[in-house]
Each structure stands twice: as structure tokens, then as C-alpha cells.
């Protein structure tokens, strides 16, 4: 599938303008005051708090964190579904809200694969009609060419051509996700945003989808933003990783570097909690993620941090440069391998990781 259409959004900015740039983005939701169910009083819930993120053209970024860390809110901001309450969210150098209000180009260029793929497909439409819908909506091909393009897209995601006549209810979980991916690719996007696109699937189906997504990303040069809670998936699919905790990015950098030697104790804990063959079960992090309505003083992770120090409870660390292409929000970042008794593989930092660092300078720290 070669891109032949005119690209009004892409020819304007300078070559090094990132696809997405978030500058100190805050998103506060007004929610009913806890315990006051029938009162109209509301309090602010900071779902995102000072997020800085830069996603370059053709990059692949994994957003990782537990539930309540703000991944989905960040995704909604990237897609322009929620406007940030503070800070700036830019798409190729222009505010996302601006771009979205001016025509369909943004919607066409940034495609989303939903977490609940089955729920995102109309059960009364055939797979063919579902894939043709975006083709028609964005006027990608003429009506006569539609069936051929649908067949091409089905082939692209590894589905047989005759599945165009079938309904989503007749497809397996893996096939439904493939349809959702085909539908996302129909508008010929340059950015693919996927929200837990492979979670809840069997390992062999997951492996099939991951190899598909990796192939698509490489062949089409897609920019990929991938939300996942699985570090194995993140390291397979994405060159860069951003680990979130309670509305903040706590660590970011090249995936292999971050996972080989996490600098933030939370990244280290996530790393250790991932199942590994025949390793003893790790000591789990104590407690649960605190409520965003009642944030801990100082560092947000201080209530669960195994290496918490006195000043962590009073000073709030922000994301600062930590080595080449890496940033961490921690007052006492772990040095190499510290807090990680389980890491034994020396093959983690591939030569590719070094290249990524050089290409993508990350002005992620607040300076």
C-alpha cells in the first residue's frame, strides 16, 4: 500500500517536528466529592499532571503502567478527544484541538485500534462493509475500487478474502482484532494508536498479532503508540518506552535500556513482577496505587517505594535527564542493576538501541 495522496498536514512543518508533542500537559476531571454521593460539590481529579512527551515520525512508543496511571487519558489527549486543562498538546507543530476542528485530515492520519475490538465493530455490518466504511468516509478510493481495496486490506492483516462476507460475531477474538487493525489502516494513516490491542488473547494469537503489527510498522513506516501493561510486548514492539504512575511519566527512554537497567524503582518493580521462567517469585511491591484524589506528599511513589528515603516524602521529583536519551523522575535513581537481583541477561542492550538514542534526542526533562 503506497501512500500517494497529498499530504497537506505533513509538508508544512520542518522535517524534525515531532508527530506528537506534549508540553506539561495536565488533565483534571471534575468528579463528585468522595463520600458525598448526592451533593453537587465536585473536586478535581488530576488524571495527568505535567506530562512531557515527544513522539517523532516513524517512532514506536510503548506507554506502560498499571490501571489508574493515566495511560488512557493520555491517549484521549493525543487523539484530541479530551483537551488538556493546562499545557499544550501539539500534532506536527499545531495544537491538536485546532487540527481536529479543521477538517478530517487528523482523523484520517491518526488511526486508533480500540481495546475492545469487538465492541468497536457494528455487529450488523459485514467485515467488508466495516472496512469499506472508512474508505468511503475519507474518499480513499472510488466505489468501483472498493472491493479490491477491502481484499487488499484483509490480505494485509492476514485474513482470507472471503471473510469480507462474514459478521464480527462469527470471528474469533484474534480475527476481530485483525479486522479492527484493517479498519484502522483503511484511511492510510501515518500514526497508529493501539490501546491494549493484544491483551486478553491467547499467547499464540498474541504472537500472530504482534508479528503482524511489527511487520506493518516496518513496511509502512507507521508511527506507533502502543498502550500495554506487558513489558514483554513493549520490548518486542517498541523502540521507546514511557512508564507511567499516577498521572506522570516516571521513566522514559529506549525500551531495551530502560528494561535492562531501570532507573526508577517503579520501573524496576514492574520489571521484577513480570513472570520469568523458573526465577523465584519476586518480592511484590507493597500496597496498591493510591487514589489520585488523595495523592501522597512528595514523590507519588514514596508510599510503595522499596528504596524510599527521607526527602522523598517531602520533595516531588520531576522528569529529568538521566544518561543518553533517558529521563527519570526520581530523587534517588537506581544505578545500573541496583534493585534488580533478577537481571542476568547481557543481551538486552542491542546495538539498535544506541542508534535510537542518537536519532531522537529527548528534551523530556523540565529545565
Amino acid at each position: 500500500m503506497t501512500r500517494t495522496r497529498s499530504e497537506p498536514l505533513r509538508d508544512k512543518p520542518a522535517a524534525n517536528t515531532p508527530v506528537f508533542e506534549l508540553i506539561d500537559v495536565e488533565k483534571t476531571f471534575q468528579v463528585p466529592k468522595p463520600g458525598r454521593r448526592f451533593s453537587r460539590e465536585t473536586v478535581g481529579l488530576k488524571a495527568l499532571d505535567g506530562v512531557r512527551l515527544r513522539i517523532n515520525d516513524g517512532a514506536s512508543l510503548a506507554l506502560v503502567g498499571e490501571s489508574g496511571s493515566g495511560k488512557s487519558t493520555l491517549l484521549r489527549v493525543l487523539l484530541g478527544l479530551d483537551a488538556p486543562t493546562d499545557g499544550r498538546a501539539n500534532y506536527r507543530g499545531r495544537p491538536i484541538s485546532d487540527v481536529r476542528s479543521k477538517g478530517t485530515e487528523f482523523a484520517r492520519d491518526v488511526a486508533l485500534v480500540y481495546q475492545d475490538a469487538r465492541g468497536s465493530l457494528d455487529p450488523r455490518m459485514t467485515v467488508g462493509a466495516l472496512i469499506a466504511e472508512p474508505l468511503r468516509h475519507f474518499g480513499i478510493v472510488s466505489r468501483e475500487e472498493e472491493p479490491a481495496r477491502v481484499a487488499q486490506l484483509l490480505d494485509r492483516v492476514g485474513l482470507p478474502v472471503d471473510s469480507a462476507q462474514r459478521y464480527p460475531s462469527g470471528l474469533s477474538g484474534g480475527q476481530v482484532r485483525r479486522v479492527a487493525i484493517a479498519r484502522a489502516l483503511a484511511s492510510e494513516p501515518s500514526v497508529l494508536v493501539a490501546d491494549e490491542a493484544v491483551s486478553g488473547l491467547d499467547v499464540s494469537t498474541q504472537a500472530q498479532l504482534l508479528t503482524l503489527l511489527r511487520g506493518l510498522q516496518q513496511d509502512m513506516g507507521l508511527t506507533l503508540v502502543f498502550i500495554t501493561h506487558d513489558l514483554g510486548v513493549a520490548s518486542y514492539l517498541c523502540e521507546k518506552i514511557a512508564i507511567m504512575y499516577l498521572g506522570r511519566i516516571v521513566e522514559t527512554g529506549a525500551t531495551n535500556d530502560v528494561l535492562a537497567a531501570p532507573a526508577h524503582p517503579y520501573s524496576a518493580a514492574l520489571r521484577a513482577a513480570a513472570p520469568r521462567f523458573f526465577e523465584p517469585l519476586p518480592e511484590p511491591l507493597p500496597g496498591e496505587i493510591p487514589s489520585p484524589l488523595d495523592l501522597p506528599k512528595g514523590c507519588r511513589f514514596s508510599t510503595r517505594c522499596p528504596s524510599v528515603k527521607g526527602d522523598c516524602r517531602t520533595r516531588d521529583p520531576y522528569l529529568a535527564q538521566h544518561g543518553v536519551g533517558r529521563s527519570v523522575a526520581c530523587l534517588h535513581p537506581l544505578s545500573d542493576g541496583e534493585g534488580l537481583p533478577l537481571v542476568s541477561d547481557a543481551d538486552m542492550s542491542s546495538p539498535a538501541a544506541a542508534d535510537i538514542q542518537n536519532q531522537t534526542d529527548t528534551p523530556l526533562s523540565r529545565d
Partner: protein
Amino acid sequence: MTGTPTLTPAPQPLLIVDDLSVHRGAAKILDRVKLTVEKGETLALVGESGAGKSTIATALMGLLSGAKVEGHAELEGTGDLLSLPSKQLVKLRGQRISMIFQDAGAALNPAYTVGRQLISALRRNLGLSRRDARARAVDLFSSVGINDAEARLSAFPHQLSGGMQQRVMVAIALACNPDLLLADEPTSALDVTIQAQIVRLILSQTRARGASCIFVLHDLALASQSCDRIVVLYAGQVVECGPARDVLERHRHPYTRQLKSCVLEIGRQDLEAPEGTVPSHDSMPPGCRFATRCPRALPRCAAEMPPLTPASDDRDGASDHAFACWNPE
């Protein structure tokens, strides 16, 4: 566990499941499943969806409805679970076998406080007085790591986080010190850090009581970390079983290899996706059900079911590592 898996079989196993088959309509969703659970051991049932892992657990609990169950499941000191009259089965549940469900939020009754649900289990099964049951409930809650146990008794399930709900489930399941705990993917709905907490909790609690545990899992790496023995299932058939290390490192069945090769450990870049999907129940071959996707399949595989064959690993003593394959690796 890791290190030295306990290989010496106990004199008498706690549970022997023999030729367990489950039919639902024309579909045979479990096909002649055999497995044993030794006293005090943790057994993992692994496999992908449709493998029949949860069906085995629910069949053992006598909770399968609308399905025809064949075969035997001898629980030590009780007899065949599958032919037990329902009155006796009701008595067994909670006292000798109990189950932790995947979705604790759905398994707990939303209309009652968690304390009431735990206390009613204690009073009913152990015949405790209201006051004793309450005191016991507080102890149980503290032992499963629920802080402020006294106050949490009066919480409704929706007021608790997913991790806390699962802790309540563990407390209820272990309230009467059962001999066998069935844990059906107890952590798959939880975040990884909470998952680690719950797995450790279940293991430490069952070990402290000397109970056996059947862990239904889909994560092979987690199974290797938490279980003594592993049973690998594919489409309702046991394809390989034995001590965790034998099954995962000296596997003989091609499906075990495939399943293991799909586990995405951190840093892995060489993922090879297997072809195809599990056949539907109306097109299941009469023999080995993996034959349709198997790279080593022979003509006889699809026609004739291979028996569970001892693997005769190069090791002293009787390891019960076995596989069901005509053309093993």
C-alpha cells in the same frame, strides 16, 4: 517451586482424575483427561482458551450445568466426586475443596458485605457461633493481608479494589482449611504488581495449611515460578504432564514447544508466530486434536489418539513426566 521440585510421589495422591470427559451437545469439550494431585503440591493447568482448563475445575466442583460428565475423580477419603449425590457434594464444597474464581468482583455477592459472606461460610461449614465466626473472620482477613480487618468486614465488594476483592475470595476459600484449592486464573484481571502479591498469597496460605492447589493459568512462565507440576492441555486433551522443569525444559510434545515459544520474555526479539487456530468442535479430529496444526504430524495422528506415555527422562527415580504424541520430539 524452583530449585528442587518435589519429585517423590506421596504414598497416596489426594485426587486422581481418570478419563474425565465432558460433552456439551455434540461437542466433546474434555476428552479423557487424566491427572493426579499429590498431597501438598501445586499443580498448574496450562493451555489456551478452549483447552478445558476451567472446565476441569468446574467439573471437579460439581458446578458444570447442562453438560454430560463421564469418568472418575477419586478424592482421598471421599470416593468419586463425579458420582456423588449433590447433598454430599454441597458438604464437600468449602470444607474439602474450594475454588477461587477469575473475576472476584463477579463471584462475590454485591448485595452483602464481604464480612457477612465470609462469616456465613464459617458458620455454615464449621458450625461456629456468630461471635466466634466474626473473630475468626478478622483473623482470616489479617492473614490474607487485608489491613484494618475489623472495619473491612463491613465493606461491600464494590468498595474494594480488584486486588482486595481477590484477597477476600482467598480468605473465603481457605476459611475451612480445605484439602484442595482450585484457583481459576485468579490474577489475570489484576495489574502485574498486584498479581505477584496474590500468587504469593495463595501459595503461602495453601502451603501453611498443607493443602494442595490446582492453579489454572495461561502464563507458562508464571506456572514455572509457582507450581510443582504442570499439565498442558490442548482443546480438551492432556498433551503433556509432569514436573515443571521436565515439561518446560525437556518437553516432548510439539504443542508444549509451541506454547513455550510464544511466551514473550522481556528483551526477546525473535518471536515466531504459529500458524492457524484451534479447530472448532464440529471439525475436531478423532485422534490428537493438535494434529491439524502440528509440524510433526503423521497420518495416524489425526485418526488415533496417542496414549499418555512415560517420558523416561535420564534421571533416577520415577518422574511422572508423560506425553501424548505419536511422533514426539
